Structure formats: C-alpha cells, structure tokens
C-alpha cells in the first residue's frame, strides 16, 4: 500500500517536472553556445498562455504546442539578434523581455482566465506500463512527458557524442578557436538560441496543457527563474540539469505532502522554500567555500562530488564574439 503511494508520488513528480525539463534543457543548449536567454520567466508565462489559448480556440492541441514553440523561438530570436547583430547587452534584453512577456501574457490572456480547456490525454504505453514499479512511474504518463525523456537523452547525445555538438561546445568555450577552424560562430549561436527558445516554449505549453491546466494571471511566475538556476546547478550538462529539475519537483511535492503534517508552520514557508533552496543550491555549486569543504573529503569522494555538483560555465558565456 505504502509502496504504491510512493510509486504514484514519483510518477506525479516526473509528470509535473516535464515543463521544467524542457525549459532547463532548452536553456542549456542556448548557454552551451555562449548565449544567455534570461527571459525564461516571461517566455514561459507567454507561451503557457499562447499554448492554452491557441489550443482552446483552434481545438487542436498540436497547434497549441506549435504556436507556443514559435513564440518561444521568436523571443529567443530577439535576444540573439539584439545581442549578436546589434551588440546590445544580453542580460538587459533578457530582463526587458521578461517584463514585457509577463505583461503581454496578462493582457492578451485576460479573456482566457480560468476557462475550462483542452488537456493532453493520458496515454500509458502498452506493455511497458505494466512492468512493475518502473512501468507506472515512467510509462503511465502522457505523450508530452515521453517527449521530455527524448529531449533529455537527445540533448545529451547531441552535445557530447556528435560532431555538431562538438562545434556547439567550441562556440561556447572558445569562439575564436572555433572560428579559426571554420565554424560559423554567429550562425551557431542564432541556431541554438532559437532552438532553446522553442524548447522553453514547449515547456510553457506543457505547463498549461498537461500540468497546471488552464490559464490565470501569473500562472507560472517563478518557474523560469528556477529553470535558469537549474541550468547552473546542473553544470550545463543535460543529464544533470534534468536530474536537477526532477530533484526540484520532488522537493516541491515533498513540501506539499508535508504541509498538512505541520499545521503550525506558516504556508508561506513552503511557498518560499523553492527560492531559498535556489540560492542555497547556487551557493553550493559555485561558492568558494565548497572548495575548502571538499579539501576534507578523501580524493575519491572529492572526485565524485565534483562530478555530481561542480560545473563550470561555458567560458564564453554571455560574451559577444567579434570576428575580425
């Protein structure tokens, strides 16, 4: 009995984390190319609204997802164009777009607030879903969740096991060297910024069509910042980033499970916990003192810890490249 409750909880965590997985893996691809798309919080709001509104109006879930991905890609394109062609500050562009998209989602989404609408149907995979424990956790979900598995594995394979992935890393680490070897640095940056933006948009639509159904003002506020932090926490590695997203989802659901057990703890503690946790996690992965703490671990433990928790950003992250 307790066992099945656990399986059910894990299964719901996997489902609820899908938007975060899409957004943070998408941002990982973007940042691997050396571009920061800071607009995630706004983009997710706007694309969650777009996905829901388009799916509701057109009656097609597919169109909803595609529209959201197009909007996510378009916002990312503005950041790429503004920072690469027009040489404006990426952070400034991202921050402005965060506010702009959030307000746009409120304004355009106003007629759709709390309207009942379509949702992605449940789709257990025959055969796989009946495997004990693993089946109900992984394969008793909807198609978008399955797609999130594909995205994680594909991003990992692409970045670390293919030629284009090698070029992508080169562009983010040492653009001058990549350029000297004939890689089209700027084109690569455009490509992965837009691709990452489309994945963020997919995450937004997943939110409103599969996880927290429907639309309301500020429907997803905060999720984008969490996704950005998870990219850092995950050390710009898709598998670790996905792990971070699931870990976050698990802690969140743990929080809501524990809330009734501690009626004396104010609800605000549980609401803020994610953000306090975000700061602590970043402190853990990037703070100098972790280095000092590691000193006391045996060498093997230190290596394990480094592999699991420490990560260095792409060396050229956020830095403009000017071919001379």
């Amino acid at each position, binding site marked *: 009995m307790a066992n099945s409750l656990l399986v059910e909880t894990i299964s719901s965590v996997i489902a609820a984390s899908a938007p975060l997985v899409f957004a943070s893996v998408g941002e990982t691809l973007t940042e691997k190319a050396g571009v920061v798309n800071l607009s995630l919080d706004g983009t997710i709001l706007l694309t969650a609204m777009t996905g829901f509104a388009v799916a509701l109006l057109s009656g097609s879930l597919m169109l909803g997802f595609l529209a959201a991905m197009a909007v996510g890609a378009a916002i990312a394109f503005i950041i790429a164009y503004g920072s690469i062609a*027009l040489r404006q500050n990426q952070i400034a562009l991202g921050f402005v777009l965060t506010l*702009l998209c959030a307000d746009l989602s409120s304004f355009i989404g106003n007629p759709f607030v709390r309207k009942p609408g379509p949702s992605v149907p449940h789709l257990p995979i025959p055969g796989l879903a009946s495997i004990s424990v693993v089946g109900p956790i992984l394969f008793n979900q909807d198609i978008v969740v399955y797609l999130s598995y594909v995205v994680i594995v594909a991003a990992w394979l692409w970045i670390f096991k293919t030629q284009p992935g090698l070029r992508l890393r080169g562009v983010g680490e040492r653009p001058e060297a990549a350029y000297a070897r004939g890689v089209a640095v700027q084109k690569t940056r455009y490509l992965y910024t837009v691709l990452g933006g489309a994945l963020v948009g997919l995450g937004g639509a997943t939110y409103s069509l599969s996880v927290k159904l429907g639309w309301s003002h500020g429907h997803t506020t905060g999720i984008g*910042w969490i996704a950005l932090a998870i990219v850092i926490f995950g050390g710009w590695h898709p598998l670790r980033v996905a792990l971070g997203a699931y870990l976050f989802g698990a802690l969140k659901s743990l929080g809501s499970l524990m809330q009734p057990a501690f009626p004396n703890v*104010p609800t*605000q503690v549980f609401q803020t916990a994610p953000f306090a946790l975000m*700061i602590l996690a*970043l402190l853990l992965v990037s703070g100098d003192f972790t280095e000092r703490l590691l000193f006391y671990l045996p060498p093997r433990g230190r290596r394990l810890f480094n592999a699991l928790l420490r990560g260095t950003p792409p060396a050229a992250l956020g830095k403009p490249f000017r071919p001379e």
Partner: protein
Amino acid sequence: MSARHLRLRGAALALLPVLLALVFTTAILLVAGANPFAAYGNILAGAFESPRKLADVAVAAVPLLLCAAGGLITYAAGLWNIGIEGQMIAGALATTWLINALPLPSYALLPLSVLAGPSRGTLWGLLAGVLRTFGQVNEIFAGLGLNFVATALTNYLIFGPWKPPDGATMSGTDPFPQAAWMPTLPNARMSLISFALALIAIGVVYGVLRGTHWGLKLKAIGLNAQAARRMGADTTRNMLLAFAVCGALAGLAGSLQATAVYRRLIPQISGGYGYLSLLVVLLSGSRAEWVPLVVFFFSVVQVGSPRLELRLQLDSSLGGVLQASVALFFLLIRGLRERLEGKRE
C-alpha cells in the same frame, strides 16, 4: 550637419522607441478587438483629468525616482540588482514593525519610521551583495530569490502576527495610527516631503556618479572589474557599498509607500516599482539627468492604465507592455544606430 539639425535628429531618435512601442501596443489592442484611441485616451485622462490624478503621478514618481537612483549606483558598478523590489519590501516591513512597536508622538515617530526603511533596506541589499561577492552567487538569482522571500514574509506577517483584530484580508494590516501618517496635500495622496526626498536622492546620485572619486571608481569596476582591481580598487568593498546604498534608497522608497501612500502594510507594497526602476535606468542610458523625464513618462502610464479596467474592461497590464516595449525598442534602436554609424566610418 549644423548643431540644430543634430539636436533635432537626436530628439527624433529619442522619441523613436516611444513611437515604435505605440505601434506595437496599437497592434496588440487591435488584435484584442479594442479601440486603441479609446485606450490611450483613457490612460491620459486617468493621469491628467484632475489635480488629484496629477498628484498621483507625482506619488508614483517617488518610488521610481528613489529606486532608479539606487539602480544607477549598482548599475554603474556593473551589477544587475534585481533585488530592489525586495529591498523596498524590507524597508516597508521595518517601518511597519517600528510603528507597531513604539507608541511615540508624531514628531518622533515619523522620522524614526522613515529611517527604519533605509536601515533594513541596506541590510537586505547587502545580503545579495554578500552572496555575490563571497558566495559567487550571481546577483540576479540572489536578488530575485530574496524578492520572493520578502514577499512571502510580508504575506506571513499580514496573515499572521500583524493581522487586523477582525480577520486578515488581502487589503493588508489595519491603518497605522495617525501619528505615523506622513502629511500629504489636502485631498491628495501626494507628500511634498517624499517628493523632495526623491528629487534630492536623484540629484545626489547625479553628483556622486559625475563628480566624485567613488563614482569614478564604481564606473571603472563596472567597465572592467579585473582591470579596476589591478589598478588598486577594492572591488569587493565597493560592490558591497553600492548594494548598501541602493538598498538604503529602495528601503526609503518602501518606507514612504507605507507611511505616505497606503498608511498601512499591504501585500503588494512594492508594487513592481523595483523592477520598473531598472527599466528606467536602462532607458536613461544610465545617466541620472535623464531619469526624471523617463520617470515622468512611466508614472503617467502607471497612474493612467488602471482606468483601462474600469472603462474598457481591458487588463491594466497594457501599461506594463508599453513601458517594457519602449525599453526593448530603445535597446534595439541603439544597436541599429551604432551599427549604421559603424558601417559609415
């Protein structure tokens, strides 16, 4: 080109982002099936139709000026201080706490309660600063996380320890005792003291950034922290100082929102002014002398747009769309201009 031509061209270029933003919002209004002229008319009427409304524009300008003054300092040091919102909240909380705790006469309570804001805002700002300088946590995440913490803390206090005797609501705590009310103009919410403080703040920041050694040092750090360090500037200390000064100004803004505008603590006491002030800093090209003009424009939109909800059943977030899209077009046009000028050379 003559000097006059250049000036005209400069003015036209400065207005271009506003024009493009209006084109953008007009398109959105048309898509939403609304009449753009009615919308803009209502925004303007909402800000200018009566002396009371005009006073409200000045009321909105106070937190924007104060937060933008602080934002200019941190921005000069190359810091993205997204935590201004939380620093404002921290100030308002400190003020409310002090007013609840000390039953003093007005002449003592008012100055003390207004000073409580900057002191707590400074600490809240320093928290993000310490996380950044000693913990290597980017100030964007530190500030943002602390904003959420500050908001939750406010809600906790309003619905917990500070709830009114007849039950907590979203309208906030009970009003402060009259002794803690900042005096305002008759029939308006505008406080001349607040307004004067805000103008002084932006004036002082103008002077500091333009004419002092510290201002120069901050700018050097902002341009290239490593180079500044090699030249002997203590970057850690100066960054922390920038966070502290900005926190103090934002805290003051929060305090004044509590004592002069709402006269109580409300859940949304910071009202998004912290985020907006960063747009102001961007739009002013981080030059203090342009801040008042940008603040005036933002305040008009801020005060005028709630009327969209009352009269046209449109969401007031159109105002935010307008403000943010002006900033976006400003950045894009600046880039285009630099690109064109670069090609011509």
